[in-house]
């Protein structure tokens, strides 16, 4: 019996030694034989569903660039930046990595990104949709290349509209139309809700723009959202809660509550992103999408992802070539469209035409129409703190802990402090 313990101790030591020794080979970067270099690319948008699609793009790239071996590393979005920051802090940043628009400025301003414009020289950028390309400029320099985007539209359940005898939404709808329809469609006894729009930062900045307001002052040094338009936008969001939309207590923290509500045919209108298309393929009712209703003006939210290169990379040219390929090559664009992996920000309409062929939803054109007036989120260096502050104050208003005006005033004060 005691021998067992001793034997285990010996075994443990032996195992530890072998583990430690067997590392030698693994720590080294894959061999750079025959002048081949290894390029590390880190991404959050591939896993879990599009790893194979990314592999396809990598294979095409390596075929065109036989001297470059692209090694993909993935992490879920929630933990992506934890990992990226640690590796930058530890001096082992990946050569190229994905950044979303909201986090882009923090990284560009900190000097951790390579100026891709300087690497690429005068290369032709007409392949990109100009708004997308410009979004990833900072201080006049192109620090990242846009690789994909998604937009937010209004999903609606046609069957519920038919049953309630309400005309389905059109591209001309305003908030007032949406509210009137939502009130008619809501039937709390049957558990049917007319509308669902989360009360948080991303919906607020967009609603603000729809109401004709601005989030930041023109010089970007102060907030401008504590305005009549801001109060209108906040009231628009908060006012739905408990009327045409379930309250926080009713949602009760259920994961994917709204998705399940819509899928089970109990939600008439749903503000959400085009990434939901794939999940709605098999629902047993008719549904479609339109551009979101506006108020003073139309404005649709766009989520952008881009490829950047680390300023510390030794493979600037290769990183640029990869960023370029992943963001604008025909292979990448068609792969994305075929697998519904967001949309490629390319200017070539014939590539995008493939997207419209898919039969569901019928009004896919709305996705492109929504691009005509986009609302990009305000971006500051202390981005996450700003988002959290605004979301928290809006939640206070939605739960009735504060009047809307006071919540907005407090949110503005908190964000002003972050800008100071």
């Amino acid at each position, binding site marked *: 019996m005691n021998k067992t313990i001793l034997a285990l101790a010996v075994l443990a030591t032996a195992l530890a030694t072998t583990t430690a020794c067997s590392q030698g080979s693994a720590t080294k970067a894959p061999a750079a034989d025959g002048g081949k270099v290894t390029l590390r690319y880190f991404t959050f948008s591939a896993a879990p569903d599009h790893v194979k699609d990314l592999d396809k793009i990598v294979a095409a790239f390596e075929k065109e660039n036989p001297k470059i071996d692209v090694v993909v590393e993935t992490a879920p979005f929630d933990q992506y930046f934890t990992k990226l920051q640690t590796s930058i802090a530890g001096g082992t940043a990946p050569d190229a990595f994905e950044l979303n628009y909201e986090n882009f400025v923090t990284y560009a301003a900190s000097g951790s990104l390579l100026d891709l414009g300087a690497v690429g020289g005068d290369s032709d950028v007409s392949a990109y949709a100009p708004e997308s390309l410009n979004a990833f400029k900072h201080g006049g320099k192109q620090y990242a290349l846009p690789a994909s985007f998604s937009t937010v539209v209004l999903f609606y359940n046609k069957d519920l509209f038919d049953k309630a005898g309400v005309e389905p939404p059109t591209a001309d709808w305003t908030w007032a139309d949406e509210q009137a329809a939502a009130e008619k469609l809501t039937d709390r006894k049957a558990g049917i809700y007319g509308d669902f729009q989360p009360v948080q930062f991303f919906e607020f900045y967009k609603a603000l723009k729809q109401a004709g307001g601005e989030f930041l002052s023109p010089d970007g040094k102060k907030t401008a959202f504590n305005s009549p338009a801001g109060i209108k936008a906040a009231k628009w969001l908060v006012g739905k809660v408990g009327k045409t939309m379930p309250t926080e207590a009713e949602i*009760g*923290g259920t994961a994917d509550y709204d998705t399940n509500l819509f899928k089970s045919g109990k939600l008439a209108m749903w503000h959400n992103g085009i990434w939901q298309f794939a999940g709605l393929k098999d629902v047993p009712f008719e549904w479609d999408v339109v551009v979101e209703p506006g108020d003073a003006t139309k404005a649709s939210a766009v989520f952008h992802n881009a490829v950047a290169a680390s300023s510390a990379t030794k493979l600037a040219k290769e990183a640029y070539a990869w960023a370029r390929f992943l963001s604008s090559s025909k292979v990448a664009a068609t792969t994305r469209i075929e697998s519904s992996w967001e949309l490629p920000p390319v200017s070539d309409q014939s590539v995008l035409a493939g997207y419209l062929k898919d039969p569901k939803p019928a009004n896919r054109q709305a996705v492109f129409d929504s691009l005509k007036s986009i609302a990009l989120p305000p971006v500051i260096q*202390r981005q*996450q*703190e700003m988002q959290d502050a605004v979301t928290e104050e809006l*939640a206070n208003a939605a*739960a009735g*802990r504060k009047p809307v005006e006071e919540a907005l005033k407090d949110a503005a004060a908190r964000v002003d402090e972050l800008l100071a």
Partner: protein
Amino acid sequence: MTATETPASATARRAGGRRRAGAGGRPPRGRRLRYALTVAAFLLPSLVPLTLYTLIPMAGSLWVSLHEWNLITPMRWVGLDNYADLLGDPGTRAAFLHTLAFIAGYLPLVYAGGLGLAMLLNRAMPGRALLRGIYFLPVITSWVVVALMWKWLLNPASGLVNWALGLVGIDGPGWWTDPAWAMPSIVLASAWKDLGFVMIILLAGLQAVPKEFHEAARVDGASAWQRFRHVTLPLLSPSTFFVVVISLINGFQVFDQVHVMTGGGPGGATQVVVEQVYTFTFQYQKAGAASALSWLLFAVVLLVTLVQVRAQRRWVTYA
């Protein structure tokens, strides 16, 4: 450590030491060296990795706490500014108060529950091994699953708990959606999850209690309560000491359950210290402030632990 021993055992050890050292006088040098080497041989296997992989990073974080650092640009020396900022920030005070509130609710609940369970499941009964396994299940189930479950159970509108309260005519509270009830909700879920942890440690302790002691007490005509109070509890005191010290250390660092159940909300009502540390480091790019906050927490936990270590000689009985 001498401070942790009862006077009786210390005397016994001194007597033993004298016996080892031979008849009187100081032990010879060779013996002392060999003894020192023996001590080193027992300690180094843990001391070396502990130094390398915990103490050095701790020193590193102490260094970081004196800087402003967003992890992606070089750090900037700010001296004690981070500490000064934190001490002047009402958010810090709130975070510590919320953490203390958690501990005040959690510790008595989990200890009493765990002890009761251990006592019950230490008896012979059909299916005992299975029952122990079941009570241990929550300990090993991930917080993601447990939190989803508890959020549903404590759902103000359609949860099982409020439904049951409704049956007896009580209008259930808003639980974790209500700032006043959010912390009690987290305490409840945490105590539920950790019952099995306390149970198995106390069970191991109970199994080390020699049966003869109970039998002797029974022969002396002691009642069940007296046997529990005067035999079981004192003999279990080293395990209890362990449970209390570890639960406090862990309780001060409560994070997982808060992160997945409320994320610090609603309205900041469950913002605890480590939730703040996490947000500072990886979301707000304030590694310096996060480190400073961690060291403030460290100071508090160390103080509380040292007080317990000092106090233990009054109530912990070692064999």
